[in-house]
């Protein structure tokens, strides 16, 4: 027989607490809602997404989708979103490379490399990204010489204050055929790996290392066959050349895009470097010593023993750095690159639809974040330690 009075019954209290919580929440929400409606009514504004179909009538400096000022607001927002996605995707690829190089550099026994990496990480991590972006844009790229006196780097890669010009491949008529050849060549590598592994499992002694040459010979052979069938090269190098007042041909990165990408890569790379360093250091020395005493070479120990274990530690924090990079790309507005945030801000200035725009903005960034962490979580699950 339960003798507890109902107001002291923990189960009743729990439900009661939640009901109160919901009531308070509803009251606050109702209060805010009333404020919003009266404020909007005073300004003669109405809520709703009808404005999205109106022509945007503002230009967007650069876009990866076709866009004209006569397009709708919805299209303008989409163009901004794609800009953000492109910068983030490229940034993630490059920053991973920079971060791993700098992280390994921090562990190098070479004094100069070690200190070089430490200085990079120390300075970049301790200063705001916004300031760095402005420095790269106003202080470096816009201070470069004009088109006529462009800084020429090997490649050729031209650095000018009007942007970065680089060699780019233009597809020729044989590109579709060559895509198939390259695909087959890549597939062959995978097949060879599978065959060799199966053969190794059946053999009682280690296979001769010469077999590894197959990785080189067979794909090259396939590509040679492709060359016999379609002698035309698939890509034609389009080299930027100075003609008149501007460069013709090649690929041009605008100063804004170049500064944003560079700034994001350099900034996030410093954080990834620390994660990589910590991850590798977290693998206990005994693991390396055990691997070496089993006869693995230093390289093998690193590749087969240390790295897989470090990866488990590294992946979750790197995921949040990738997310940070994507979110930080919204600072593009400070240097005038039309990313999603900057386009949405312009749309807001023109329409005054504050609540609608901010809702779209938050939902879009949230879905990008959730999607990225979903992908990384899938990858993380693959590499995690499988315990019994």
């Amino acid at each position, binding site marked *: 027989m339960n003798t507890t009075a109902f107001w002291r019954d923990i189960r009743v209290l*729990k439900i009661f*607490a*939640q009901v109160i*919580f*919901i009531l308070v*929440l509803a009251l606050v929400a109702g209060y*805010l809602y009333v*404020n*919003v409606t*009266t*404020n*909007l009514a*005073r300004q003669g504004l109405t809520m709703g997404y009808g404005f999205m179909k109106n022509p945007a009538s503002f230009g967007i400096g650069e876009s990866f989708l076709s866009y004209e000022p006569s397009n709708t607001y919805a299209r303008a927002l989409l163009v901004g979103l794609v800009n953000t996605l492109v910068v983030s995707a490229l940034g993630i690829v490059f920053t991973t490379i920079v971060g791993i190089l700098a992280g390994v550099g921090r562990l*190098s*026994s*070479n*004094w*100069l*490399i070690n200190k*070089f990496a430490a200085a990079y990480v120390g*300075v970049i991590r*301790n*200063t*705001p*990204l*916004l*300031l760095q972006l*402005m*420095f790269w844009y*106003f*202080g470096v790229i*816009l*201070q470069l010489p004009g088109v006529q006196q462009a800084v020429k780097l090997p490649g050729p890669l031209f650095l000018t204050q009007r942007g970065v010009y680089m060699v780019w491949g233009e597809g020729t008529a044989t590109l579709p055929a060559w895509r198939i050849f390259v695909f087959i060549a890549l597939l062959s590598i995978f097949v060879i790996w599978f065959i060799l592994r199966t053969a190794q499992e059946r053999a009682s002694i280690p296979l001769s290392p010469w077999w590894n040459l197959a990785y080189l010979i067979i794909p090259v052979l396939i590509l040679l066959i492709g060359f016999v069938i379609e002698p035309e090269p698939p890509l034609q190098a389009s080299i930027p050349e100075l003609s008149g007042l501007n460069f013709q041909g090649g690929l041009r990165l605008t100063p804004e895009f170049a500064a944003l990408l560079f700034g994001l890569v350099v900034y996030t790379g410093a954080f990834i470097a620390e994660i990589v360093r910590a991850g590798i250091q977290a693998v206990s020395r005994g693991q390396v010593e055990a691997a070496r005493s089993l006869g693995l070479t230093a390289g093998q120990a690193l590749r087969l023993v240390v790295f897989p274990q470090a990866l488990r530690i590294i992946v979750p924090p790197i995921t949040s750095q990738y*997310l940070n990079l994507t*979110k*930080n790309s*919204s*600072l593009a*507005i*400070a240097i005038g690159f039309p990313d999603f*945030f900057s386009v949405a*801000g312009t749309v*807001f200035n023109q329409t005054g639809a*504050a*609540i609608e725009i*901010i809702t779209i*903005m*938050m939902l879009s*960034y*949230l879905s990008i*974040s*959730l999607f990225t962490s979903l992908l990384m979580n899938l990858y993380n699950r693959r590499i995690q330690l499988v315990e019994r």
Partner: protein
Amino acid sequence: MAAIDTVEIKPPRLTVGPLAWLRKNLFSTWYNIALTLFAAWLLYLILKPAIEWATTEARWGVIEANLTLFMIGLYPREQIGRVWLCIFILAALVGLSWGVWKNAARGFALIALGAGLSFIAIALFFGWGVWEDWLIAVATLLIFYFIGRYLPRGALITGIAWLLYFPLVFFLIAGTPYIATLPPVESNLWGGLLLTLLLTIVGNFGALPLGILLALGRRSKLPIIRYFCIAYIELIRGVPLITILYMAAVLLPYFLPIDIRPDQVVRAMIGFILFEAAYQAENVRGGLQAIGRGQYEAAHALGLSGAQTITLIILPQALRAVVPALFNSFISLFKDTSLVAIIGLFDVVRISRSILAQSEWLGTHREVFLFAFLIYWAFNLAFTYGSGRMEEALGVGKR
């Protein structure tokens, strides 16, 4: 009698001295030599033009001419004594903490002392009048150090003084219409490093209570509260800070009654608190998870109520465990305050931009931005050092 074989043994290779050091750290293997040469070449490529520029081309006068602007923005120059007063009180508090808490506060105190002394040196070198003010600050610090050493119940007094300090600073900076010597200063005139630091401190300390509540809520057994907290934390962490600041600057007035219109600085502070709370919550949650079930059960067995268990047993341990994470958040918020430049407040970054618009200093982007870098970098370095010493003295992660 067999002759004893004599084997020539080479003398051991040098293991000490600069040559050995070079060989070991720079030229041990062929690829190390290659790496060293590559890095040296890279360093030469970067440093040579940089040093040439810094010593000949750069116009460092822009920094000296605008130093006050960097520090306090457009804050009325005749009211600058109020900022100094805040610095003196801070020096007194740092000195007091050093005297009372010894090791735990020594890192921060030494940095403050070093900074004060180097400011005196710099000011004397350039012939600026502010060296006297810095001298007062240093003297205050030292005097209060000795007071702190012999102060009875020092820890309690110092703790309360620190708690009172931040509202006091706010009061001194903002002023009030009721005191003639402290006329109100509109917050749109606050700027430079002053504004950056105010935003950092308000953002962090305002967010901590909210963050603790969110962390507790996220671990609550009541599903509605838990899901609400999870939704809030994940929403805030999933969107860029600038969208939240933008929301606070643009959208907040819509949600408030018509007669309440907080100014931009207050809106930004609310934005930072809402943002930082989500991150603090995750930090605190880490600490909560590190506490074993036994602590809850023991508290329960001693007859403590749920609220008592949390405030007396769990939170003190959880918060101490996450002190390093909280310091990290502090540093990253310090950097993130630069984003207010985008919504139009005159923090260090925006001040830099406005200096670049002055007609006599056109084209001094690098000088100005490098100085702004230096401000952030020096503060972060000092803070990292001080908090590291403090964690060491408190034995965070050891006890």
